[in-house]
Each structure stands twice: as C-alpha cells, then as structure tokens.
C-alpha cells in the first residue's frame, strides 16, 4: 500500500507541478493569446460540461473508433494472410512500402476529391493511416511464430481455424499489440487533422474554428480536451493490452530466468 502511494506520488508530481506553474504564471496575463489558465478552465466548463459534447466530442470519438476498428480488422486480416503466404507478400511489398511512405497529410486532397467532406472521408483517412503499422507488425508477428509451435501444431494436426485462432494469432499477439499502439496514436492525429481540413463539427474543427474567430480560450480548451481524450484512449488501450497479454509477461519472465516459478 505504501509502495503504491509512492508510485502514484512519483507519477503525479510533474503533471501537478506543471498545472500549478501554468496557473500562477498565466494568472496576470493580459495577452489575448495566452489567457490565464483560470479563464481556460472556465471556458472549458462552459463549453464541454456538457454543452458541445454532442456536437463536437462524440462525432470525433465516433470517427476515431470507426477508423481505428476498420484499420484493426483489415490490418490483422491482411497481415495474417500476407504473413502466412510468402509469394503474395513478396508481390505486394513494393506497393505497401510505397503507400505507407506517402505522408497521409499529403493525401488529404485525394481523399476530399474522392469522398467529399463528410464522415466517410475522415473515417477512411483515419483507417488508411493507422492500417499500415498494424499490417506490418501483424506480418512480422505471424512470420515470427516459433518453428517448435508450428511443428507441434502439425504433429498434433491442429489445422484450419484452430491453427489460426489458437496458435498463430495468439503467438503473434504481442507484436500485433505493438502495432496497435502505434496505430492508436496515428489514428488520433489523423482524426484531429482530418476535421481541420473540412466539415462542420469535431474537436479538430472546433479548435481551428475557435482560432479563426479569435476565441482563444476556447481554442486552448479544445486542445486540452484533445489531450485528455488521447490520454484516456491510451489508458484504455493499455488496460486491454495488459489483460490480453497477461500470459506474455509470465512466460517471458520464465524463459528469461530459464526455469519455472513453482
């Protein structure tokens, strides 16, 4: 318990200090660009509790979730196929490398031309950008399944869906999760960016619109909210990862120490 408190204190001291410093340093600010933190907090309350939640926050989250889930499904499914099927992987690697080399921000015009300014453009952009880290990590993870595990599967005739869902995907899951983690950050980034390029709602749109209309405290409040959303999303992800990969930590501890625990 004491240890836990110590850890929490160690984790909290810097954020708390930063907020306190920001609060006092900005307290007497008269600059319209750096409003006092107190003012930002007031605006934050007025705006986000819960005035514009329906209007901006929820649409953003919805696009984010749709895009990310789409990327997960496609990334894992295609990555699995390419990881298992060497000739196809060889045939597609140049195209994949080319597509993932294009900064997604540069593709925004193409997405707008093809899909307009609506949700489908934003969701597609999020999905496209976060697809590649998942794809590449899944391919690597699937290729890295140990030969002992594959031999075991063959010797005991574990085939078809059992082989994929009980052996290959779990074995690749630590690497897949590494890809998901990167993809999550990319998805948040592209979510905010895509909303800034067009449309009429969303956090990105709100921040840019507030800036354009000189409502600077509102702009800051949007940025703070975006940070909080990112933080919360990451936290959820880490909890899911820890639960799904709980075997992995135990197994690594064993193989590294070279023996069992009991």
């Amino acid at each position: 318990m004491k240890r836990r408190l110590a850890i929490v204190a160690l984790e909290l001291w810097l954020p708390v200090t930063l907020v306190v410093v920001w609060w006092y340093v900005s307290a007497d600010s008269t600059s319209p660009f750096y409003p006092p933190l107190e003012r930002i907090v007031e605006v934050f309350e007025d705006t986000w509790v819960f005035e514009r939640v329906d209007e901006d926050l929820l649409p953003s989250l919805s696009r984010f979730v749709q895009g990310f889930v789409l990327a997960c499904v496609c990334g894992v499914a295609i990555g699995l196929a390419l990881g298992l099927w060497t000739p196809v992987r060889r045939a597609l690697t140049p195209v994949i490398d080319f597509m993932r080399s294009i900064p997604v921000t540069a593709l925004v015009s193409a997405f707008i031309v093809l899909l307009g300014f609506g949700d489908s453009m934003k969701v597609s952009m999020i999905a496209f950008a976060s697809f590649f880290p998942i794809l590449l990590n899944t391919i690597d993870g699937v290729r890295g399944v140990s030969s002992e595990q594959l031999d075991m599967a063959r010797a005991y005739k574990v085939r078809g869906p059992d082989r994929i869902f009980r052996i290959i995907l779990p074995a690749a899951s630590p690497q897949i999760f590494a890809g998901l983690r990167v993809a999550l950050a990319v998805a948040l980034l592209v979510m905010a960016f895509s909303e800034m390029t067009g449309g009429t709602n969303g956090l990105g749109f709100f921040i840019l619109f507030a800036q354009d209309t000189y409502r600077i405290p509102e702009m800051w409040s949007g940025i703070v909210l975006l940070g909080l959303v990112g933080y919360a999303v990451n936290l959820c992800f880490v909890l899911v990862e820890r639960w799904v990969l709980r075997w992995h930590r135990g197994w690594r501890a064993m193989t590294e120490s070279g023996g069992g625990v009991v």
Partner: protein
Amino acid sequence: MRQLAKTYGEGEGAVEAIRDLTFDVESGEVLCIVGPSGCGKTTLLKCLSGLLRPSGGSARLEGKPIDGPPDALALVFQDYSHSLLPWMTVRGNVTLPLLAKRMPKAKRLQLAADALNAVGLDGFFHAHPWQLSGGMQQRVAIARALAYQPRLLLMDEPFASVDAQTRADLEDLVLDVHARFGITVVFVTHDIDESIYLADRIVVLTHRPTTVKEIVPVRLPRPRDQVATKALPAFTELRGHVFQLIKSERMGQTPAPV
C-alpha cells in the same frame, strides 16, 4: 499385436544428414536412439513423425508409408517452453490436439483429466505452463501426448534441460506410462545411462552421414528401479559397450567442425 516397422534410407541433398538407416520398432517396446551429438537424431525423429519428408527410402508405420503426421503418433519435444502454448492453461494445452478429433467436449475434458492425473498433475488444470517448473512442464507435454491416445510415442531428448533428480522422476514416469498403457515408445537421447535404463533395445547411430552402428538389446528385468537396476553388473557392462561404440565413432572421425 501390431507390427510396427520402419525402414529408412536417405541420401542426396546438400548436407547428407542420414545415409542409410534400417531398423524396426516392435510394437510395445521401448526403443532408445543414441548417437554422437550432431548425428541427425532430430532429423530422424522428424522423418518418423512425418514433419520432414525423407529424401530417399521410406518410413512405415503399421505397414503404411508415413507421408504426414500419422494419427497413431504423438510427439514430446525437447523444448517445452515453446512446444507448450503459454497463452493456454495446462488443460487447454492438453485438449488442443483433441479438438480436431471431433469428440464431445465432456470426452475431451475426461481424457485430459485422466492424462494429467497419470502424470501427477491433478490440481494444476488451470495453471499456465510458465507457472510450473521445467519438470512439470514436460509432464504437461507428456500428458498432452497421452490424451491423444497414440500407439507410438516419440520423444526427442525430452529431459535434456531438467535437473538430475527431476530427470530420474520423469524417466520413471515414462516407464510407468509405458507399462500402464502399453504404448510403443521411441526415445531419442544423448545420455547413455538413460537409454539403458529405459530401453528394450538401443539403436546406436554413427556420425554423419548417419547409419546404424549397432542395435543393442537390453535384457534387464522390468520393473526397473533407479538404484537397483543401475547397480546390476549387466547395466555396467551395457554402459561400457554403448560408450565404446559411441567413442569409437568419435575417434574414427576427423574432428567435426564446431
């Protein structure tokens, strides 16, 4: 009585691992395979289990050529930390091979419970393999093989990485399982004492490219005992003989590149 027969002859290829192996495995016996290190014991076992295709000659199980993993065969690997799946519980690992056998779930669980009891792991059904010691993990691997209900059990240096005491216990477990279930056992090892203690016959292999050096019958009484059996003059004699065979193999060869 079933007659298990395997005939080997393998050649060609860039590295000639196994030149010509011809021997039979009698139904119900324990056959140990020993040889100098790097002599292709694992290659041989992979051919027997259908994981590798021989480049010449053939391996037959009950008269049928082995061209893929046979149903009647179960395998215990050397490296339990990889061959057991760490994301599954002990029971999950044992029932996994049974999924393809299309039996009711109750039957699967019953087979798994029986096998785990037979290896002394009742009470560890819901543990994960990495929570167990190395010896216990290898017991899980043996239970997985038993639940599969094979007629032939192949073991590839299964006890190479456990300590001496655990190893003796596991050797007795193999003998116990063999006596109780009447399974034919082919046991690959580099430990001469272990091979004599377990075997009805020992196949001594030559250096690469591998051929059969000699087949040594082991006429020690069963049941065997770690102390009494190993104290028999016949045991010492056999050990000397097998040791000489392997040593002559090592001497007669130009030093193998490391």
